[in-house]
């Protein structure tokens, strides 16, 4: 069974990548298993300055999922480059994905420039879809003019592959994906969290301090599948599918919809061994389904 896949010119041993924000800077998981089995790792969203994020509580539970309003807590790009990535490099020997966020175009550019010089990074994942910050973030992912400007400017400052991580909180995902392609993006990550909320019946107030937050987990898988399916047929960009992936079947399903690789998010929080289990189960399931080369099934569910 061959689980190898390619994202542009980058090779991955398998398509399994922990999603940004659910795997810290990777090394927290070394206590559970050898993380070198992973295809790659998407690091916690990074901004120019160090951020605390939003006030507590910033986690709520829902049926088949969760809501978070962490709000891009991170130590800032300099600490990520000088402390977190070196610490991760000691225990993880493959290239990683840096997740970039910001409030202004200048923020994104400055981050991208700094990450550009780091050899450990294979892909820059541009987060224009965080629902948990007041400025920027999602605003870029919903405004095609701004998004176009951001991507063209980013292309000019980095040689790394640029994957744009899009928000599902839009009315026309295909149009936004096409804008990314036109602007010169190298690939897409679909999807970030859906905007959601929960209310505490005893206090009669939202559970999350910020009132709303990002909804993730198995409940959002159908939305992610649908968006990957639509975008795969409308653009030529490689897609990393993300949203509700919990097991090997979910991976196959996401790849049939058009994903070249997948990201596993919330599942890591509930079961720290989630990615390990998926990687172990994948060849077994491929055999059952008669799949020899995993990359052959990409987009298999789409007509053409």
């Amino acid at each position, binding site marked *: 069974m061959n689980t190898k896949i390619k994202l542009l010119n980058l090779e991955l041993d398998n398509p399994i990548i922990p999603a940004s924000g659910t795997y810290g800077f990777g090394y927290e998981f070394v206590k559970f298993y050898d993380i070198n089995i992973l295809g790659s790792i998407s690091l916690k969203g990074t901004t120019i300055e160090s951020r605390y994020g939003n006030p507590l509580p910033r986690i709520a539970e829902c049926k088949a999922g969760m809501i*978070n309003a962490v709000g891009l807590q991170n130590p800032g790009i300099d600490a990520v480059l000088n402390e977190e990535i070196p610490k991760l490099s000691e225990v993880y020997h493959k290239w990683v994905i840096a997740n970039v966020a910001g409030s202004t175009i200048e923020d994104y550019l400055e981050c991208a420039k700094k990450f550009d010089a780091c050899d450990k990074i294979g892909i820059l994942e541009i987060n224009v879809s965080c629902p948990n910050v007041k400025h920027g973030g999602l605003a870029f992912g919903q405004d095609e003019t701004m998004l176009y400007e951001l991507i063209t400017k980013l292309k000019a400052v980095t040689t790394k592959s640029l994957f744009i991580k899009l928000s599902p909180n839009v009315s026309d995902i295909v149009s936004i994906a096409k804008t990314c392609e036109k602007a010169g993006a190298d690939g897409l990550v679909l999807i970030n969290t859906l905007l959601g909320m929960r209310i505490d019946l005893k206090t009669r107030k939202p559970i999350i301090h910020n009132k709303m937050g990002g909804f993730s987990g198995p409940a959002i898988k159908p939305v992610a599948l649908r968006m990957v399916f639509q975008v795969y047929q409308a653009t030529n960009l490689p897609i990393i599918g993300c949203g509700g992936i919990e097991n090997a079947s979910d991976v196959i399903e996401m790849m049939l919809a058009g994903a070249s690789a997948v990201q596993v998010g*919330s599942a890591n929080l509930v079961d720290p061994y989630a990615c390990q289990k998926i990687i172990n189960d994948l060849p077994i399931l491929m055999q059952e389904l008669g799949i020899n080369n995993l990359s052959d099934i990409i987009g298999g569910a789409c007509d053409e």
Partner: protein
Amino acid sequence: MLIQSKVEKIKVISNKEVAKDIYQMSFAASLHAVPGQFINIKVKDCYLRRPISIANIEEDHFEIIYKVVGEGTKILSNYQSNDILDILLPLGNGYTLVENKKVLVCGGGIGIPPLLELIKQLKKYNNEVIFLIGLNDINENIYQDYHPIICTMNKSEYFNGNVIDYLKANHLDYNYVYACGPMPMLNALQKYVTCEGQISIEERMGCGFGACVGCTCKTKHGYKRICLDGPVFEIKELDLDEY
């Protein structure tokens, strides 16, 4: 703390209601953990795990004490002996044990259980322990074996008031404090006591092992994850007015 957290399938020995809506649950496993650490339990039909403190550690089993307050704890209360639960443990830093001190151990409501293992351990290190607890409902007093001073309302045989009222009204002799309980109690205690000590706090958690930063609080020593760097903090380390 060198003890590694891991997920284990653990057998329930018993799960009995010891007061209204309060359950004591015993697990068949020899656990290497320190008082103040917690476990994160996967409960059927709930997406996130439920964090519960370790209340008692014996050679071949350990116990938790929890209150049914919502869906997850309700389902947890239905498990029976021989059922197998998927548990991530042990988690958090736990209390650091002092030696040869006069210790005030102060608890409120469902914050009391982790203090039981703590008291057991403190006694091994030659500490004198005063155990002071506040209960809204005196029927929740399942702690007689630990000889607590009880503060409650409208019951003539006990102190009438909360633990802070008790401390103000009585001159207790102590030079170290440990506490766990509702935030208003911890906040008042932090402002009242002058000696050093440690408190344990609760927060809604995504993972319980440091991956999601869903539980990060601000401390005098920078940002800390309650699940990994806590739940135990130095008593003066947190600005409890923020919560």
